[in-house]
């Protein structure tokens, strides 16, 4: 009985010290008016005051709206692109393996280099995208200094980077569907759309849901790429939730308020993470698959 505890003790100590304790501490701090450093005012207990203030803060709603918009626009686009590519590439042709591997490079790209790359792509005058627009006879767009375009740019960056992630998961799911099944549907006279609707999509549904959950959890965390691209600007046009929290804590020096936001995001993320874990992760299945006894 003591043995498992002995093996787990170091991990439990780490998890307590750098995960559980910080969360409890955040919860504590969120009950205070807590300036960033001593010279910036007095610390005072406000109870749920920070949470109440948050609900009345238009900047909070702005960042929440941007964050949700980001999730609801970027992820469906990634899903459609990834699904299409998975269908297209689920066959052998010359160089298929190479294409499938290289497509994944952006996914594991350092997020900040992805942000940097897109900031470069979108620069006025010398950025490749504007050069292309000029060649096509379309007027130049000052992407990152226009609120709407900057928001679009942040989404484009994410779609570019993460649709191959969707592709990777859906492709793996697709290869698990027996070819005979699809061919049988073909022979029975089911057309392309009908095959998708009544055969492939239903069979892929578990994979699709997993992929969506993973992407939502990931999108709730987004920070680095956007920070490097726009720092949340112009103004607060791309101030997604993590960026806004960061600004409140270290820009406005309101640590109590930022902690309240951190707790809010934490709860939201736990809901999605727990759903994913309950749906997809099973110790028993994992052990069965491995065939260990």
């Amino acid at each position, binding site marked *: 009985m003591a043995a498992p505890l002995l093996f787990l003790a170091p991990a439990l100590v*780490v998890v307590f010290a750098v995960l559980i304790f910080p969360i409890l*501490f955040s919860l504590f701090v969120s009950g205070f008016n807590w300036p960033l450093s001593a010279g910036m005012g007095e610390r005072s207990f406000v109870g749920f005051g920070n949470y109440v203030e948050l609900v009345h803060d238009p900047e909070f709603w702005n960042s929440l709206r941007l964050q949700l918009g980001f999730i609801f626009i970027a992820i469906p686009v990634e899903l459609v692109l990834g699904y299409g590519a998975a269908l297209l*590439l689920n066959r052998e042709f010359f160089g298929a393996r190479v294409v499938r591997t290289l497509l994944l490079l952006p996914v*594991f790209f350092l997020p900040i280099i992805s942000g940097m790359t897109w900031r470069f792509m979108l620069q006025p005058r010398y950025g490749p995208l504007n050069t292309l627009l000029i060649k096509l006879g379309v007027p130049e767009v000052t992407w990152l200094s226009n609120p709407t375009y900057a928001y679009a740019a942040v989404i484009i960056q994410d779609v570019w980077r993460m649709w191959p992630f969707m592709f*990777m*998961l859906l492709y793996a799911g697709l290869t698990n569907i027996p070819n005979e099944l699809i061919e049988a549907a073909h022979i029975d006279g089911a057309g392309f759309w009908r095959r998708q609707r009544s055969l492939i999509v239903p069979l892929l549904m578990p994979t699709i849901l997993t992929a969506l959950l993973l992407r939502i959890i990931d999108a709730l965390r987004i920070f680095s790429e956007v920070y490097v691209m726009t720092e949340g600007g112009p103004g607060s046009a791309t101030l997604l939730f993590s960026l806004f929290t960061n600004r409140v804590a270290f820009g406005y020096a309101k640590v109590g308020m930022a902690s309240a936001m951190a*707790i809010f995001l934490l709860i939201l993320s736990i809901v999605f993470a727990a759903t994913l874990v309950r749906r997809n992760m099973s110790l028993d299945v994992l052990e069965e698959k491995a065939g260990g006894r």
Partner: protein
Amino acid sequence: MKHRRRKLFMNIVIGLAAFIVLVIELYPIGMTLLNGFRRDIVILSGRPFELSQLTLRSYVLVFKNPGFLLGLKNSIEVGLLATIVSLAVGAMASYGISRYRFRGRNILAYGFLVFRMLPQISLVIALYLMFKAAHIRDTVFGLTLSYVSFNVPYVIWMLLPFFAAIDRSYEEAAMVDGCTPFGIFWKVFLPLAAPGLVVSAVFAFINSWNEFMYALILTGVNAKTAPIAINSLIGGETLTWGQACAAGTIMLVPVFIFTVAMQKFLIRGIAAGGVKG
């Protein structure tokens, strides 16, 4: 016969389409790699690419840039330290979960996984206050600790399937011979688990290598990592694209190798909680 010809034709068309998609998708990456070999002034002029623009100047500048060099050194140091610690702690915990049945086993295992997926911003504010109070902000030790926090749960779940696949008869034989549980784990089990340990170590290192937010908030001048140094190359008024791209390319080398070499394990890695920083 006709059917086969049609199939071949389709495969060529699809191969071509896939190739075009790939070129568009990889264009921004190619751009970054290429700009590392061009001078800032050429990049900023917007002149189309010519072979004569190629130069190693930006690389020379980057390798003379004390900020980037320090960042690179810290990135390697923190990456290796965090990997070693997470692997040691994670392997023990994973072994405990894999080989013993005890109350709360499921909750513990799933709890680790949920913790891995929490947003960094939710933790970093508290970590900032804690580290400041403990005087470990802006130290390699502090940053390593923060990287261990997300790598331990990650390593645990990366290792579980590897561990489950290892036959227990070796351990049982060692037990009969009178080995202690820890002796069995250390001398009998770990050597058998070497491939899984290597894969997990590589993933843990890349996690740390790619990380940005903790480094941004929990470090200052001393312990800043390479991503922070790169960010300052294109921050504010200075737009040294050439240097930033050269530095970025240096950072990408391990990532490229990782993506190609670890292909078999990428999906499993994502299932264990993603690879993003």
